[in-house]
């Protein structure tokens, strides 16, 4: 038996990780294959057109891809697949976006037939200007992103050779006093900078902010940072002040509350997408300065209007950061075409193995509903069923029991439904943070939690993203947004920052047995299961909960 890789004709690659050559093979296929699942024995990668084009964009050619497959494959590689790889990769770069000294941005075709095909498509109508000759057509600069997106959909991805504007210079350096960039963070920054624009995928707690800071230092220009909410904006500011030469005065916050524009400006997605009388009123921010770098935090949450704005920012360097590039709306492609291809990706378990994120144990606790609840559930309207099952009162006792088991450890209880959370907070005697809690109150509770003053917090989905709770080591989720894989991963992320004591974090999901709650839980767990987190299933009865 030779070779760690099995190439299936449906374009999946199976990598047996106990094999001697597994590591070498993983490194070799990472540039062009998407990691789909990483459970304990065999990792599944998939060859997609997007992945192959990204590889082309990163300078790999079809021959290298084919060689890698042939070198590591255990069995003969299906011939049709090799042909397909070559043909797919050959489509990339037949069209190029170039800067013409006379006409400005121009779509140049190496193959006139491709240009003719593309120009005939309805989708490119309005994006292309005057045809200069058989191989060149003028592109309106503001349509650069949109056009790239359309060309990707048409299967003729353009190579963007038009370059980036340098932006307004602004000195930024990292101040590595007492800390240093981790190797994978450095690789991520290098990968991004080398490629120009793109997305970096790192697990929660693996220090994405540092990657952002590193990129800013590399760029040393004015920077626009787009984040999900105000709390997150403040954390970015604090982190930047701590990690870089930037001072508070150089960093502005552009949010509902404040409208500051400074060399480094942190804006929320929400304020940018606010409309008044049908008009986006804060778009001027995008042109307020000659930004040299635009940074998107939690890029998987990028709202649709920002997609369109991003299309206008194509001439600027863009960096997207995320832990989980799975979008339930299936718009991963748009993220790639507008921000740029994936420049760096590290499986969660890899980072865990290196000790940079805490090892976590995922446990699903199944609760058998009492007969009265089951009867109520059985006869409920379909749209009510999830809520009924998710908020089953029996969960309170389970949570109580789990909290007691982890007495003294910083514990978060996370849920979706406010009634349930109020009840729970009362039941276990903890403070509650919801969307109604003021920013000041939130900060106070977070600080208290951080300092160890309080060890239990009940939070609603507002805390799903970007709250920095360094010492949370237990998370208990009682309900969520149906089957969101994204949310599940983000919630696990809350407890993955490495613990001082090096202890294992615990992630509990309390689920009502034989209900849609259980089905949704199964779907939610798919992403993490594919990342190699094996869920253990326990019965509530075994926890000593009657």
């Amino acid at each position, binding site marked *: *038996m030779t070779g760690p890789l*099995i*190439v*299936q*004709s*449906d374009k*999946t690659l*199976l990598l*047996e990780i106990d094999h001697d050559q597994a590591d070498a093979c993983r490194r070799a296929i990472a540039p062009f294959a998407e990691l789909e*699942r990483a*459970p*304990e*024995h*065999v990792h*599944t990668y998939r060859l997609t057109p997007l992945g192959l084009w990204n590889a082309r964009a990163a300078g790999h050619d079809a021959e290298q891809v084919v060689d890698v497959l042939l070198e590591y494959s*255990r*069995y*003969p*590689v*299906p*011939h*049709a697949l090799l042909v397909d790889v070559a043909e797919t990769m050959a489509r990339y770069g037949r069209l190029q976006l170039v800067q013409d000294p006379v006409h400005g941005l121009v779509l140049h075709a190496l193959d006139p037939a491709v240009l003719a095909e593309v120009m005939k498509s309805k989708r490119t109508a309005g994006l292309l200007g005057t045809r200069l000759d058989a191989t060149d057509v003028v592109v309106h600069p503001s349509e650069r992103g949109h056009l790239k997106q359309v060309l990707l959909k048409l299967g003729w991805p353009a190579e963007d050779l038009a370059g980036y504007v340098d932006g307004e210079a602004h000195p930024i350096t990292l101040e590595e006093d007492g800390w240093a960039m981790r190797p994978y963070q450095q690789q991520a920054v290098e990968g991004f900078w080398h490629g120009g624009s793109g997305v970096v995928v790192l697990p929660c707690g693996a220090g994405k902010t540092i990657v952002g800071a590193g990129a800013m230092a590399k760029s040393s220009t004015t920077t626009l940072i787009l984040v999900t909410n105000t709390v997150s904006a403040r954390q970015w500011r604090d982190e930047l002040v701590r990690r870089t030469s930037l001072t508070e005065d150089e960093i502005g916050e552009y949010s509902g509350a404040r409208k500051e524009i400074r060399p480094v400006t942190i804006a929320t997605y929400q304020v940018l997408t606010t409309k008044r009388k049908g008009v986006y009123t804060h778009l001027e921010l995008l042109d307020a300065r000659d930004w040299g770098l635009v940074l998107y935090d939690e890029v998987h949450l990028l709202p649709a209007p920002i997609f369109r704005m991003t299309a206008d920012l194509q001439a600027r360097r863009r960096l997207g950061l995320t832990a989980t590039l799975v979008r339930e709306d299936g718009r991963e492609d748009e993220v790639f075409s507008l921000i740029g291809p994936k420049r760096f990706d590290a499986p969660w378990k890899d980072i865990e193995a290196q000790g940079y994120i805490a090892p976590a144990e995922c446990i699903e606790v199944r609760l058998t509903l009492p007969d009265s609840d089951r009867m109520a559930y059985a006869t409920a309207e379909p749209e009510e069923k999830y809520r009924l099952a998710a908020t089953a009162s029996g969960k309170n006792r389970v949570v109580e029991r789990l909290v007691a088991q982890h007495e003294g450890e910083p514990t978060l209880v996370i849920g979706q439904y406010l009634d349930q959370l109020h009840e729970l907070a009362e039941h276990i005697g903890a403070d509650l943070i919801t969307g109604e809690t003021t920013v000041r109150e939130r900060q106070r509770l977070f600080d208290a939690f951080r300092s160890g003053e309080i060890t239990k917090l009940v939070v609603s989905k507002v805390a799903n993203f970007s709250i920095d709770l360094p010492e949370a080591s237990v998370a208990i989720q009682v309900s969520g947004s149906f089957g969101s894989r994204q949310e599940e991963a983000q919630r696990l992320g809350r407890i993955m920052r490495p613990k001082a004591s090096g202890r294992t974090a615990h992630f509990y999901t309390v689920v009502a047995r*034989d209900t849609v709650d259980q089905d949704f839980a199964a779907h939610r767990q*798919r992403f993490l*299961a*594919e990342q*190699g*987190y*094996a*869920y*253990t*299933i326990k019965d509530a009865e075994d926890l000593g909960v009657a």
Partner: protein
Amino acid sequence: MADRPGARERVPRIVVRMSTFTGFLRSSSDERLGALLARRPDLASPSPGNVTSLAVRATGRASLERALASVDAVVLQVLEAAVVLDGATSTRLQDAVAGGPHDEVARAVDDALALALLYPDTDASDDHAAGTAASAAGGARLRVAPGLGDLLDAHPAGLAVEVAGPPEPVTLPSDDEPLAAPARAVLDALMWGPPVGLAPAPGSTAGDAVALLVARGLLVRGSGRHVLLPASVALALRGGRTHREVAAPPDLTGSPLRAPATVAAESASAGERCARLVARLLRAWEHEPPGVLRAGGLAVRELRRTAQLLEVDEGEAAFVVELAFAAGLLAQDDDEPATFVPTVELDSWRGLDLPTRWVALASAWLATTRTPWLVGSRDERGSLIAALDPELSRPWAPRLRAAVLGVLARVPGRAPSAHEVVGALGWATPRSVPPLTAVESVLTEAARVGVLGAGALSEAGRALLPRAPGPATGAATGTERTIAAHDPDAAAEAFAQGLSPEVGDLLLQGDLTGIVPGRPSPELEALIDRAATVESRGGAITVRFTPDSVRRALDEGLTADDLLDTLASFGRGPVPQGLEYLVRDAARRHGRLRAGAASSYLRADDPALLAGLAEDPRLAELGLLQLAPTVLAAQASTHEVVEALRAHGLAPVAETPDGQVLHLERTVRRARRRGSRRAFAPVASRQVDTAALVRRLRASDEPGDARRPASRSGTSDEQVTSDAQVTSDAHTRAAAGDDATLVGPTSSAADATGTATTGSSARSWAGSGTADPVDALALLREAAAERANVWVELVGPTGRPERRLLRPLRVEGGRLRAADPVRESELTVAVHRIGAVERADEPVDQAADQDQEDM
């Protein structure tokens, strides 16, 4: 050019020299004759009585056509040259075709001799014998087999052999003559054929040149303004050559080369998939066999369902179905209505190992006359061709497969395109080049069945090819390889080598998936089949365990512990906790609901009463079973239960499903009246209808021409009358559908009398008359072909129907052209003006005679 064709007589070129040809055969060695019979199998069957009859058969047009269809382009060139240079030696033929000694041409001469398409004329004394060693008959004068010349081009090798040339030697206009240049241009244009040209108008330079050439005998006037270049002149111009160059086979060495391991692996994986699809199809059909359409074949709906079942497109589904049929694993049963069911062979086939199962399928595919790729297309009548349609057999299908695969066999490891294959066949068998679509279909099917891998012929496939008769042609390709004879064992072995190794490992993972890193052992395959869903197949198999898949295993009688033990025995390490939980959870839920059959129930508010009844031995025959304290189920019907309980001194009442009390009455029986919804239809006439219908069907069923008077002579008058009655009756109904609107009052009477008097011949037609437009057209076409007369009801410009006796001549483009024998005229009418058509009388030969007598 020392060896001129001086001895050629300018007399009719086809001289039947049967005696010398027969003599050649008679004098051939047994070995040679045996080889001839092997290469021209039609000569051997039925076995000829003697050499003379063999010679007659070998010179028959059909047999020669067949033989010509099998020869390559060089042999054809040799034969053309031999026709032109009648009686030339092999050396001379090589000169003519290749311009000098040429091995390939010598080989072609030998081939033609072996096929008895050429033969040495031993009668003609030979003083030119300048033998080359290349041919056994190197010095003999060679002639083409009698009759062969007629089958070749009218101008073989572009030479007008039928016209006499000028006296030898041919002298061309010398350069200093006026008009030499234009004359030369004319000759050059005709030199390599076609040798016929249109003379330019006299007076022009070219016209004068032609006149000059004609005067010299270098051109010969043909019909009209045509002129021909005599063969002798053309040969002189060509320098004695009949062909510019030896036909070379297209070079296939440029087509992509595949690694042997890839070819073997892809052939094996395609073959494995094919065998799996056949097995899955038959597993489904053994439980629910699909019905046979009345016209034979499988309904489109069934095919679509099959495609869904197999998760393939409909084209491939049709292929799988046809393959199962060709392999004898599927047949039509004799039930009514008929269905397609697996045959008993299926059970033995299933018991074989995979390579042997594959060999059975692949051999069946190579040999079958079925043409699955035509499924879904339309036949000449425009109807959709169904899978398993009996019409889908084509006797040439196995030959086509052998020819296509033969091309691939000559370029081992290479994957030529269908275009290239057609090109190669254009050289190998120029007289029978298959169409591109057929070749494409064969290549697609070969890839599906696994005879090809990555587009190249696999070793396993090569071993199954039919034994090639005679020496493999294609020496010029330089990659000649003797095609292995048909050897199923070698094929199975080669196939097995391409399969990924059999493994007994199932890597179970925490995300509820499992991976078999190779081809599963039969036990493992069975487990996967029962308990998991396959997500990806190939060199390895990825499966996922879901509550549904585990439930399926439990449904088949496995317990949770059995399943977990089995999984653990295949897994490396323990079963992941998540999977174990899944299995246990599925087992916990399995069988929580119980279903059973009962005919009626008893319910009461008093549990004690029901308990007493359930225990009572006197009520045992009711089959009472206590389901709950207040409910009993009974095997007996409500009626019986109520009666029995009443007899028992209890006072039960029956109830409706919604709880209403039902007063049971004793059953009153009624027969449903049989009869038609159309009470006005007289019963008697309907009975006659069916009987007549059957007779008509029988009559039309008989093959042969429509007249067949002898077979009908015994028909009694009574039958004739009833037939007439029936046909007119049938006609009225057919014409009218449910209501008589189309056939006007004028027709009915004439109709009845017409058919009645014309007697027996009328009955031999499929339908004596029709107003259905499609049938009418068919009837008109049929009549045109048979030159029979028909009664045609024409709708005139006023909308008034007019009935005329016509003899259809042609039906096309929506128009009928017909002769009117009565008015002795021809007419053309638009088809839409034809209201009804009806057979009138005997076919026209007699009818015409009659007409004449009438006049």
